């Protein structure tokens, strides 16, 4: 496993000499700023309205975590869904297009070292993105008093969502030598995963099958949204953590098989 670092550091360096990393970072920072501002403004308006109508009971229940940070994290998880395929599209596809896969596969290293090295490189980049998101709630601590554990749990949830997206995007990249195809494939896979919870809602609402139906429960479990929302609510449950571990592990395994498959042909 000593080559994991070698692969990861080369990958990260490549990412930062290509324009992709900067485009993604800039877009992400702009979007994060925009969505943070809009959720703060919305919160503000809500507070003013509740005061005007003298609804003090509801006013007491308002807090920064549930009404600013949670929606902000939620939106940012969707932004990650759009941007992470841009980061992962080159992971394996570019090696094949360059012919450098021939160098890697004839060097004394295992396929796991390649797959993990690449995963960690993209994971490091996503950690930077999530840290960027963390700056904004940080501002709230200057002017208000959100709960630290809840905020940290939410940020952790966002990171886990990001890492899952990286594993899935990497898998998409390992299937093709064309980066555009890798991007589109990753995007579609992530979108499907995200929409599973909507499907589950439809199934639950679909009368005949009833809300207790196992299919909709399964879809709900498979979708990232519920697990992520639990963490944002501050509920750190091993069931949710296991979900992310299984999701990431499964796609790393699939990626390993896809990389190895050149040898089966």
């Amino acid at each position, binding site marked *: 496993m000593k*080559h994991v670092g*070698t692969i990861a550091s*080369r990958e990260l*360096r*490549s990412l930062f*000499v*290509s324009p992709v990393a900067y485009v993604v970072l800039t877009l992400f920072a702009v979007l994060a700023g925009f969505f943070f501002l809009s959720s703060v403004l919305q919160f503000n308006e809500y507070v003013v309205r509740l005061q005007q109508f003298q609804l003090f009971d509801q006013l007491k229940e308002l807090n920064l975590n549930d009404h600013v940070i949670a929606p902000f994290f939620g939106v940012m998880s969707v932004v990650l869904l759009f941007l992470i395929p841009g980061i992962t599209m080159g992971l394996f596809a570019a090696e094949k297009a*360059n*012919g*450098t*896969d*021939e*160098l*890697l*596969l*004839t*060097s*004394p*290293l*295992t396929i796991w070292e390649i797959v993990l090295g690449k995963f960690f490189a993209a994971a490091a980049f996503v950690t930077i993105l999530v840290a960027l998101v963390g700056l904004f709630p940080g501002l709230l601590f200057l002017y208000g008093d959100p709960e630290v554990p809840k905020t940290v749990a939410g940020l952790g949830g966002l990171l886990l969502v990001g890492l899952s997206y990286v594993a899935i995007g990497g898998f998409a990249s390992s299937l093709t030598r064309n980066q555009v195809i890798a991007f589109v494939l990753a995007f579609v896979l992530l979108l499907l995963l995200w929409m599973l919870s909507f499907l589950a809602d439809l199934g639950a609402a679909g009368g005949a099958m009833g809300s207790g139906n196992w299919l909709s429960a399964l879809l709900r479990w498979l979708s990232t949204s519920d697990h992520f929302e639990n963490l944002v609510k501050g509920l750190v449950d091993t069931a949710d953590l296991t979900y992310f571990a299984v999701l990431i592990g499964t796609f790393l395994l699939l990626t390993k098989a896809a990389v190895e498959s*050149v*040898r089966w*042909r």
Partner: protein
Amino acid sequence: MIAARHLSKRYGDLVAVNDVSFELAKGEVVGFLGPNGAGKTTTMRILTGFLPPTDGQAVIDGHDMFEEPLAARRSVGYLPESPPLYPEMDVQGYLTFVAKLKDVPRARRRDAVDRALVRCGLTDVRRRVIGALSKGYRQRVGLAQAIVHSPPVLILDEPTVGLDPTQIREIRALIADLAAPKAGETQHTVILSTHILPEVEAICRRVMLIHRGRKVLDAPLAELTGGGRSLEQVFAQHTARDVAVEVSA
């Protein structure tokens, strides 16, 4: 040093390599000839561990490619048909990366990279970005990555393809130099694939001819060109006869 035993590679019905066997002793330099699509690249990919053979066994420096893949791959330097370069890296950074991949110990890594740079005439461009180099220089970087870990076995797949005459001469001189090292340098066993015959005459002492996946000829160069025949005539005779046999059959 290299032993190929009954290597075969089939893709469905297509037989790319058909029962090819040979042994190479330490220090031998063999020209691996054949028309395009004869199975040269596939054979080399099997020897480097990129592809597993459908049948047969490849042994590099005493290590079976299937049973001890890591040890066997450590003993091979490989220049594929298109050099495996990262265009965004600089030459020295790239060679250092390859040296790490090939398990050159940290203490000797800098030396190994310097030696490869000097041997391939790359010292002046060591800080240049690979993507900005000319094709001839990129080919040299490709050779440098193949020799950076001083492997006992070198496998070069058409190293001069697409170069201009001056560059071809330079690369050839470089390969000849690798095959006949000065004191203290690694003695490489070299397989050089090409379909350019003068290249073989200039560098190799032994010739293997592969045609339609089969080895049709394996002899010392001197023996083949002994009777006043050119290598070109030998090549034409062997690749043509096969076609004639097939037509009559």
